[in-house]
């Protein structure tokens, strides 16, 4: 059980996350309708304004709030209740994050920050927008403190013992986050805020982009790793099996820390001012992330197969039938995993020097991250919510609710399949991302994109219906479903009782290697960008 005070902490984060999901998702549908020329926006809103809000609310706010809500519940469940001091830190974090979010959204709605969620200089938003982002990030530092202190406290109280896998993974995710945010914090504090306040006249554009992408790539792993936590720790219990290997799960998370940060240049492959050799080095490191990904895939299917065979299913693939397909806690995660197969392959394409030139900044890329964050991650998060909310509220997920939840998941799957397929295919022929429409005065090349835009709007409509349904189900699970005890599934590992190598919890070592790799990949090019800067840029407000 989760302590009552921690229940409140977790739920506030999750509810705020769902508000962001609802608003951000609604804006997403509007975007597809504008692009397919089905509507024009009311209230003098412009397309790029709602696109900014969509990105900020979903990519930055929804993810971060949900992730911390999930972590707090899991940490409280596996390491015991938070001390009041740490819980206080977590609440301070919550308020900073929500104040930052509200301030940021107000700035966007006032049309003072139509810079999209990547806020590339030299487009210049109001200083309050950058301050809002800073508040959001500082809030996560308080939250990170609470989780790490709780983990350290558990270790002190249980010397020499293997830490709970959930807590270890939460800390690994946060370590990744802390190292990664250094880049964006440096850019916001030392470049964007002084420049938007007029204290400095010009900005070093390439430096700001490099710092952003130093953060931007590990950001996607910050979204993905909590989903992996559910896959590794929760799903094996749900299917009545075991975690395939505790040690390898820990190793995979550590490898994600190493290989997800010194790789930001693969987002800047077609950009001037960075030499090809440094780009290629970071492409190599990018590809290395395939190894822990393959370890995760192996682990999942090994765990599935063992569970199936345990239940008596025979034959090479007979165990497949032994999986609980009608259990939403499993189905949602499994579809998420399935989406990650094309998503991972697409990622390899994006990071490959030459293939990147075909798809760079086309809507293919939008399709790519809608099947990673918008399918793999969010489907897993939906699945988590369906047992976590009733668990925290002392209610149960009934059979009937489970079927409705399955329906919601399938609706999302179909919607995302249609939308992302249309994005991928039209991106291959050059349809650009981030455009209000792709008509180009009826140019022949652009004319082939129209039907894809319609398909995206159809997919987007299904997705928004799925969000509506999700919100209704969550409200019912929180308020009206029968009282009882829904399980917080925490799996047991096959190697639960064998000692795990001490090396795996030697954080100094792993953080040391991570920093060494970052220094190797970034020191010389960044030094060059700072020492021999290109002429700087004043701010522009083209909206």
């Amino acid at each position, binding site marked *: 059980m989760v302590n009552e005070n921690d229940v409140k902490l977790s739920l506030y984060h999750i509810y705020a996350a769902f508000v962001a999901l609802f608003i951000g998702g609604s804006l997403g549908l509007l975007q597809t309708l504008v692009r397919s020329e089905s509507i024009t926006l009311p209230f003098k809103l412009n397309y790029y304004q709602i696109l900014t809000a969509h990105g900020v609310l979903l990519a930055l706010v929804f993810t971060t709030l949900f992730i911390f809500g999930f972590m707090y519940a899991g940490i409280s469940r596996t390491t015991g209740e938070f001390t009041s001091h740490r819980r206080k830190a977590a609440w301070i974090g919550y308020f900073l994050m929500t104040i930052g979010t509200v301030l940021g959204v107000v700035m966007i709605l006032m049309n003072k920050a139509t810079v999209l969620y990547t806020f590339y200089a030299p*487009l210049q938003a109001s200083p309050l927008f950058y301050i809002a982002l800073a508040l959001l990030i500082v809030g996560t530092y308080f939250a990170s403190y609470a989780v790490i202190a709780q983990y350290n406290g558990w270790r002190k109280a249980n010397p020499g013992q293997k830490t709970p896998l959930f807590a270890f993974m939460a800390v690994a995710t946060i370590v990744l986050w802390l190292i990664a945010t250094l880049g964006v914090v440096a850019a916001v504090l030392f470049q964007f805020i002084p420049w938007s306040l007029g204290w400095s006249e010009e900005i070093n554009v*390439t430096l700001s982009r490099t710092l952003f992408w130093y953060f931007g790539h590990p950001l996607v792993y910050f979204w993905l790793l909590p989903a992996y936590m559910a896959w590794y720790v929760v799903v094996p219990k749900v299917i009545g099996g075991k975690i395939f290997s505790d040690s390898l799960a820990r190793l995979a998370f550590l490898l994600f820390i190493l290989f997800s940060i010194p790789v930001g240049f693969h987002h800047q492959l*077609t950009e001037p001012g960075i*030499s090809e050799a440094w780009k290629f080095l970071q492409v190599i490191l990018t590809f290395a992330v395939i190894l822990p990904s393959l370890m995760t895939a192996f682990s999942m299917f090994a765990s599935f197969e063992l569970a199936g065979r345990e239940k008596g299913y025979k034959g090479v693939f007979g165990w497949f039938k032994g999986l609980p397909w009608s259990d939403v806690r499993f189905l949602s995660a499994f579809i998420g995993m399935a989406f990650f197969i094309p998503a991972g392959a697409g990622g390899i394409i994006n990071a490959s020097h030459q293939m990147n030139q075909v798809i760079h900044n086309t809507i293919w890329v939008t399709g790519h991250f809608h099947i990673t964050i918008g399918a793999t991650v969010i489907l897993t998060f939906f699945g988590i919510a369906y047992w976590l909310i009733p668990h925290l509220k002392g209610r149960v997920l009934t059979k009937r609710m489970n079927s409705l939840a399955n329906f919601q998941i399938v609706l999302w799957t179909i919607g995302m399949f249609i939308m992302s397929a249309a994005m991928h295919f039209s991106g291959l022929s050059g349809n650009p991302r981030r*455009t209000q*429409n792709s008509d180009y005065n009826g140019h022949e090349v652009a004319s082939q994109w129209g039907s894809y835009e319609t398909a995206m709007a159809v997919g987007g409509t299904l997705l928004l219906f799925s969000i509506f349904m999700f919100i209704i189900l969550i409200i019912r699970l929180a308020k009206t479903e029968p009282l009882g005890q829904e399980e917080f599934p925490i799996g047991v590992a096959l190697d639960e009782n064998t000692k795990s190598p001490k090396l795996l919890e030697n954080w100094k070592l792993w953080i040391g290697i991570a920093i060494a790799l970052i220094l190797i990949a970034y020191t010389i090019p960044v030094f060059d960008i700072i020492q021999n800067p*290109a002429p700087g840029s004043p701010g522009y407000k083209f909206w």
Partner: protein
Amino acid sequence: MHVHKLEKVWLAIGFITLVAFLTTVGIQAFASGHGAPSDLTKVDPQNLEETEPFDDPGLHEIGENEYELVMILQSYGFTPNEITIPEGATVHFKVASKDVVHGFEIAGTTVNMMATPGYVNSTSYTFDETGEYLILCNEYCGTGHHLMSAQLEVE
């Protein structure tokens, strides 16, 4: 730490594939000259029109059916914005931004690069097929971003 035999095989296959991929990408980038556009030439965006070669934007013949195309990008247009070249021409593109970050993409080709203010960016392409090509900006550059395009005719 115990690693299952099949997992070792699986990871070995993954690792070999990875090395093969990287070798292919590396050879194409460095030996075959298909690296991503990474021009290191600096240029002052605020004095772009006074700086060579951007003081004379346009198409310049530099060899037999070989051209240099110098273009200025600004919100929301390309200068020049209508270009005609003969079939089979090789074009060396030189682009730079006068204001914010822009993208330079010729839809349906591999010409696709960023124009970040402060740098020149460049790439080359041989147009073996005739037709009307669409040049467009693929990085958000303001509320008129979707209007930023140009025509390239290969005849």
